[in-house]
């Protein structure tokens, strides 16, 4: 069933993307509104490399490296800002990336986008099943990495920084260094998700990486539960399947135009209810479990 495979692949990519944001937003309390910028960097890196003849695996690795490096370079000056200022700077960064991709036509073909990006191929097979399996393996391995990070002393320090930076400083932690490293790791995995995305769709253009995607992935994290491993997974699966599920509402043809609005309204309503009733998200962060 190609359609279910499609939903599966999109879910997995969103899970990876949301989990990488969760590391920054959920654990370190960094309100990164520009995560889509790193997703785009990853997409374009692997697309450009594979289109010029390198293998998909090399492309994905490079996507991770370049996105991670961009995260490092971006956070170097920006992390001296705190709170809202960081959020605004990250928003600006994503827009800068999009404008770069749109205008540097010698490299990215600008608004024409990049068609014909090769698909993931294993032993000569390149169907959706192969893509799904690849995405599954990559996502599971990445989630395992996130779990390691979350339960390590590094992860606990991040949570301390999130709760109270002054306390962290008093304990002798170099807050900026911790945040920089988090940004680099989060961006690298965001770039990996972008790379998978490019190889799955086979065509990317700068307009795919708009604010809409940022909002969607933020929704995945906040809805599922910040700071937990399971939260972004639940959030991503819900966001993708509710969106697709609405396609099956038995509405007359003249009403189909309303479906997307219903979707937005539904998400809005869920968010408001969540804020009122369960601000910690569906999966609440349990401090006890995290400590042991």
């Amino acid at each position, binding site marked *: *069933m*190609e*359609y*279910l495979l*499609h*939903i599966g692949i*999109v879910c997995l990519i969103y899970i990876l993307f949301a989990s990488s944001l969760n590391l920054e937003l959920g654990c370190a309390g960094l309100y990164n509104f520009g995560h889509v910028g790193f997703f785009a960097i990853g997409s374009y890196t692997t697309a450009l490399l594979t289109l010029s003849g390198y293998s998909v695996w090399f492309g994905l690795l490079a996507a991770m490296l370049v996105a991670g490096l961009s995260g490092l370079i971006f956070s170097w000056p920006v992390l001296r800002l705190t709170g809202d200022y960081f959020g605004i700077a990250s928003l600006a960064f994503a827009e800068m990336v999009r404008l770069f991709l*749109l*205008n540097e*036509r010698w490299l990215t073909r*600008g*608004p*024409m*986008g990049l*068609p*014909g990006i090769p698909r993931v191929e294993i032993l000569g097979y390149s169907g959706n099943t192969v893509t799904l399996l690849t995405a599954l393996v990559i996502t599971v391995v990445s989630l395992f990495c996130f779990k390691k990070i979350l339960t390590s002393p590094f992860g606990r320090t991040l949570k301390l920084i999130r709760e109270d930076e002054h306390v962290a400083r008093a304990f002798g932690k170099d807050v900026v260094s911790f945040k920089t490293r988090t940004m680099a790791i989060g961006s690298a995995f965001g770039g990996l998700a972008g790379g998978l995305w490019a190889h799955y*769709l*086979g*065509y*990317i*253009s700068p*307009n*795919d990486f708009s604010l*809409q995607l940022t909002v969607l992935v933020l929704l995945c994290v906040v809805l599922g539960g910040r700071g937990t491993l399971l939260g972004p997974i639940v959030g991503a*699966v819900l966001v993708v*399947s509710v969106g*697709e*599920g609405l*396609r*099956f509402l*038995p509405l007359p*043809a003249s009403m*189909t*135009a309303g*479906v*997307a*609005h219903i979707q937005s309204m539904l998400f809005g309503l869920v968010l408001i209810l969540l804020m009122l009733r369960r601000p910690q998200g569906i999966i609440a962060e349990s401090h006890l479990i995290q400590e042991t």
Partner: protein
Amino acid sequence: MKKIVCTVLLCLFAGTAVAGTVKIGAVQPLSGKISVYGEGFQRAINLAVEEVNNAGGIKGQDLEIVYEDNLSTAQGSVSALQKLISIEKLPVVIGPAASSNFLATCPIAEREKTVFIGAESAASDISTCGSYVFRVFPSDMLQGIGVAKLAEELDYKEVALTYINNDWGVGLANAFKEKYKGKIVEEFTYDEGKADYRSEILRLKKNNPAAVVNLTYIKEGGTMLKQAHEMKFNPQWLLGSAAKSPKLVELAGEAAEGIIGTYPTFSKTSGLYEHYKTAFAKKYPDEKLPIFGEYNYDMIHLLAKALNNADALTSDSIRASLISASQGFEGVTGDLSFDENGDVGASYGRWSVKDGKIIEN
């Protein structure tokens, strides 16, 4: 989750198991950025479907369009197409507007061997999508070449070139640059939807070109013409087809006087066009003729002919029948014979503005 999906699927199949219709899919922008256009396309398509069904339908059965919203995004288009192919199992799907969404979906249609046909997408890359992909809309290449010919016919040896920074503008400009033999003294892009283009006009003015090729839309074009006129910069403006609208003249006022553009011609005095216009006005008395509506209307009639001629309703026989049905097919928009890339040709005419009116010649 799986349970829910299965239940929903079952309900769907139970609900749609009504015999007696021939279904084709349509991935359309019903919501999102370009949904304004989507509604218009849908109206033109529905009008054509109604006519087809009144004339006997497809082999005695009614033609039905299954619409799927693509949210005006590439991901939405892929989802919609996957659903139409693997769940509805439709052999023919109408592709989405906006070349970027079309390009994201056409490899899937090709892989799944589904006939995929577009009525609005102009990017020249679409020609290489594959053998199951068709479009009844002329490629960028042709229109870019049309503007280049216009500049040469008017004997401009030097022009400045400026265009909207999106897939449409860049595609046209590339085709123009390839064809135009004269010198391009200045070339730059500008963003869509700005209220002020004075700095762009200053940049154009610096070289003082006799003619400016401006590949623009209605709002942007109108604003630019008006502001250029205010800044006493009055070259010969050469425009494409997307700016050809009374709205542009209204926005630009007297600044629009004397501008020249190209557009894909189809005879608007022909009986077919008159028929389309009156039928549309009858079905939708309150609506204006939608942009590219003619192409959508033609596409359905062509598809209906192909479906009627097909030996079986499988994608392969429909594909073969579509190619043969298109040869010499006269629609509202002219001859729709597909070439080996599944593209149609187009002839380009000239339009200009005189005394506040658009004149076609």
